[in-house]
């Protein structure tokens, strides 16, 4: 640590510089407060609308706090259309898809980070280059494949691909994280008789909670909110997921904002909960992998 000049600076502070620093921090703090309000107001507005009596929605000036809280909006909104059913469907797809994604992205990332093989670097370049490929290029032939397999209007197209690679970005994230773990861990484990899979499951995975949390959050958020794939593949209402269900709801009743916002709140809740639980690890997972090189 080359902290000597810093220490000397602190012992003899230039008063002007110190004052400027305070001013800057006060500025940063107030801009952040402003930003926070901007970020949070839409959520509050949504929550407030979802609890309002229909008669209070089209009031001007708007009222942030409803004169009374109408919980019935939630039960009504969720029963007009079979939302309960769609929530179960979405949960199943999200859990299975995320499981597949975490499992395959971490295993593939491990192989790219730790095992040497001819052709590895070329394959890694190919993997990275798929991140640059817009999905629309492959979307139509992939649809035709699933149509051939008779998988259209089933959940398979939404789940099975997750087990096959788990997304290039997630593999990349896992690989970068594993690269930061010391190789000596593997050597020590190997001497103790651990095999290739043993090193992965028993040594590296337990140390990789931050990156696993990140991939899990991406998986849950991505799948729960996915719209393009359900809209392409699911046609029977009983098989719908919440995203396309919500859109159907909007067409069904475009001005009942109290209901629409109630449904939106419930739809957002699972992602918010997952994020709050994984938050600390998640931020660490992104930060330590260092998306630089």
């Amino acid at each position, binding site marked *: 640590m080359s902290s000597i000049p810093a220490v000397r600076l602190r012992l003899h502070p230039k008063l002007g510089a110190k004052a400027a620093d305070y001013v800057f921090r006060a500025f940063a703090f107030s801009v952040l407060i402003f930003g926070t309000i901007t970020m949070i107001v839409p959520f509050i507005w949504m929550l407030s609308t979802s609890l309002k009596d229909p008669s209070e929605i089209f009031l001007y000036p708007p009222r942030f706090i409803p004169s009374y809280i109408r919980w019935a909006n939630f039960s009504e909104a969720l029963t007009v259309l079979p939302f309960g059913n769609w929530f179960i469907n979405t949960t199943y797809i999200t859990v299975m898809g995320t499981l597949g994604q975490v499992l395959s992205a971490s295993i593939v990332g491990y192989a790219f980070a730790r095992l040497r093989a001819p052709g590895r670097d070329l394959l890694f370049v190919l993997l990275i280059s798929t991140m640059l490929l817009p999905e629309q290029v492959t979307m139509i032939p992939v649809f035709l494949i699933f149509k051939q397999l008779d998988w259209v209007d089933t959940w398979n197209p939404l789940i099975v691909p997750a087990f096959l690679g788990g997304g290039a970005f997630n593999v990349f994230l896992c690989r970068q994280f594993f690269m930061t773990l010391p190789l000596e861990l593997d050597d020590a484990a190997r001497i103790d008789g651990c095999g290739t899979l043993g090193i992965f499951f028993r040594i590296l995975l337990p140390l990789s909670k931050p990156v696993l949390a990140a991939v899990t959050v991406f998986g849950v958020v991505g799948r729960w909110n996915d*719209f393009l794939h359900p809209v392409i593949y699911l046609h029977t209402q009983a098989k719908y997921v919440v995203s396309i269900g919500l859109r159907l709801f909007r067409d069904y009743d475009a001005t009942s904002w109290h209901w629409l916002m109630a449904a939106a709140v419930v739809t957002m809740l699972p992602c918010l909960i997952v994020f709050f639980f994984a938050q600390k690890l998640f931020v660490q997972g992104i930060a330590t992998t260092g998306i630089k090189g």
Partner: protein
Amino acid sequence: MTESVLPVGAATGRRRGLLGMTRLERGEAIWFYALISPWLIGFIAFSIGPIISSLYLSFTRYDMANPAVWIGLANYERMFTQDPLFLQSLKVTAIWVFGGLPLRLAVALFFAVLLNQKVMGMGIFRTIFYLPSVVSGVAVALLWMWLLQPQFGILNFFLRSIGLEGPAWLSSPQWALPGFIVMSLWSTGSTMIIFLAGLQGIPAELYEACSIDGAGKVRQFFALTVPLITPVILFNLVMGIIHSFQVFTQAFVMTNGGPANATLFYVLYLYRTAFQYSQMGYASAMAWVLFVIVLALTLIVFRSSGRWVHYEGGVRGR
């Protein structure tokens, strides 16, 4: 092979076999291919294979009911000469990318820098700034339809309270696209967090040295932060270009391309062509034009990056 030709440092007593590898190396390579096989299968089945067949389909007329008919370059000709909707979708998307993306990157970098300062309650600030990115999709689209509602929406209420009369946003052909850009500024959290990760990699000593030299905060930002963060700017710019071209959900839910095709985004039109009009050949050609545009922009960015991206030291070893 005899042991005398083994390179120095090779484990003695190991015979080199297939591909000049020792048994240990071969075992490792076999494990490597076994472990990446799920990705490799997915890569062949869902990337390479479909890329080739979509290129083929783009030269055909194909409605899924009848076999594909080879029509040469007709799809590409039609796009640029007989399809005003295609040109409209290209225009809408271009405005979205070239107008919206720089704005999003600037906002994300600005707040990332502030989120990297030592001020009270930083953990809470960071969480709140990321929140909107956790809740993407249809629910957010609905929320923003309500926020941008001209008479009773909260955005126009705030604008009125500072004496401005807000536009009709999503129901106005001029303001629908700007409305989308405003919405996108709200959810730049994932870009922000990647910037933040990059900023945290800048050693604090550099800032100290810089302030000893008498540079103010603004000066430090442009002289130190920006050059050191350029690799992350490059990453976010490239990913931003790719993602911006693919916007679909919001357009589908909020305006369905309207009013007067003012928000007919490229992928929305592509989706309609493929899955509503069943013109798989034409849609494939559109996908390839999208690919070429994105690739060209990415290459231009990478080509130019030598001039503006600053790498510290050498390339890190793999």
